[in-house]
């Protein structure tokens, strides 16, 4: 059951589920596309993330009841198969300040952490938090660690971190509480580019170790 709740006086949040699951992301992206195609009156923009979709609307044109009805009539009528695009390579130098600590906490060698992190394909679940920040999953269970007890005030652009069953790429300098294991020279956010973010939810990527 989708749940539609007000997010202030200009937003409706559609919650499709409560887990990190490729099938749920597929539903979110299918709903996003269906709304983009149908353009219900008053809908201004949408924001997908993991298992939910935020709909910003013009309160002078529509109201929550009407927009909610346009959203809910799509439930059960979407093609939810995730379109599988090509896999993008993210060249990665595994020299992050937390690599040794992650190895210690996971009973692996640093080389083992690298092999495990780089050894699979990831799905992009969300671009959010900060400009271009790319949330990917799922990390192997063995690499799953709680966030840092005390977040760093500055994490440099290009840093690659892990937290829980997620791995992510910091596209711009920001604070951050993830364990930093590497970095990439790939530019993930460019305000002069269209679109400004390199990745979008549903993309797939792979970390390629470089020296």
């Amino acid at each position, binding site marked *: 059951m989708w749940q539609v709740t007000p997010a*202030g006086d200009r937003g409706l949040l559609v919650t499709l589920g409560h887990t990190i699951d490729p099938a749920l992301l597929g539903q979110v992206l299918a709903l996003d596309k269906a709304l983009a195609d149908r353009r219900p009156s008053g809908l201004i923009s949408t924001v997908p993330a993991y298992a939910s979709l*935020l709909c*910003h609307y013009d*309160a002078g044109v529509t109201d929550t009841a009407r927009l909610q009805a346009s959203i809910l009539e799509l439930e059960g009528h979407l093609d939810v198969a995730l379109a599988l695009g090509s896999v993008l390579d993210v060249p990665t130098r595994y020299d992050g300040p937390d690599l040794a600590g992650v190895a210690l906490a996971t009973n692996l060698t640093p080389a083992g952490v690298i092999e495990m992190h780089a050894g699979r394909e990831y799905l992009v679940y969300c*671009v959010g938090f*900060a*400009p271009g920040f790319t949330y990917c999953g799922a990390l192997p269970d063995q690499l799953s660690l709680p966030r840092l007890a005390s977040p760093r005030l500055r994490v440099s652009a290009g840093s690659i971190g892990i937290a829980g069953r997620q791995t992510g790429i910091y596209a711009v300098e920001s604070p951050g509480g993830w364990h930093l294991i590497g970095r990439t020279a790939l530019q993930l956010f460019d*305000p002069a580019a269209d679109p*400004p*973010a390199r990745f979008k939810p549903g993309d797939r990527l792979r970390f390629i170790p470089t020296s």
Partner: protein
Amino acid sequence: MIEVVDAGRWTTVQDRGRPGLERFGLPPGGAADWFAAAVANRIVGNPQDAAILECTATGPTLRFSAAAVVALAGGHSTRAANWQPIPIAQGASLTVGTIAPGLRSYIAVRGGIDVPPVLGSRSFCQRGSFGGGFGRPLQRGDALAVGRLGDRDPLSAPWPESHRLPARGPWEVRVIPGPQLDAFAGDALQRLTATACRVTPEIDRMGLRLATPGLRLQSHEIVTVPMTAGAIQVTPSGGLIVLHVDHQSTGGYPAIATVITADLALLAQARPGDTVRFRNVDPTEAARAWRRLTGWLELDP
């Protein structure tokens, strides 16, 4: 041109921001006190999307190489006239000084501040280090061009006091429950609205941390969700973060309620130590509050 003689504490170019790009991780941005910025533009005869200067705590000193008409609105400048057109002679200066009561004062210049738009807006985006002309707050020695956006006559009298928002707390801030209300116990919102919250020193355009003396809310964890300005996030320690215009586009702490758009302007003026009380309203009252303020902007006082 306008020369920045002294930049003040944190002065940035802002307009109505760049909403709609949250899916790329961008905040909507724009003037934190959207109402004061709109009034300042109205006083000098600018359209509402003209870029203005947002001054924080201590404003700048500016020298004008050509005659200009400016206006200050919002937090109270202790050195310049507030809420009225100020004619500036060629070569003359404007000093804003300390801002109190209130936290943010908006300087509109007839014609608008003309810096190159980035992603559809002239607003400085701190998290992305772009926009606002320099990709940073103003510094001494910066030069700002003035545009040609003035499409109405400047007002001839001060903006009426009856059509201003309060500049000092205690603040009554209206909220709509949710979107993650069900991550909390059934009486949580009622307990929150019964609490006098206190603004901590940790406040900026991204959000305001509030303390809730005598109240420690608890929630269950949620999967990262998209966030809006006004979302009242409850952190694991039980404190609140009220997201503002430069908020993170997604968040992992549940939002118990969301501040209505009209009252985001109030929070932009809140200072550390101020008291904030939240009041639960429905969308009809939120819409009425919005129409009241936009109605004031359409007046011809």
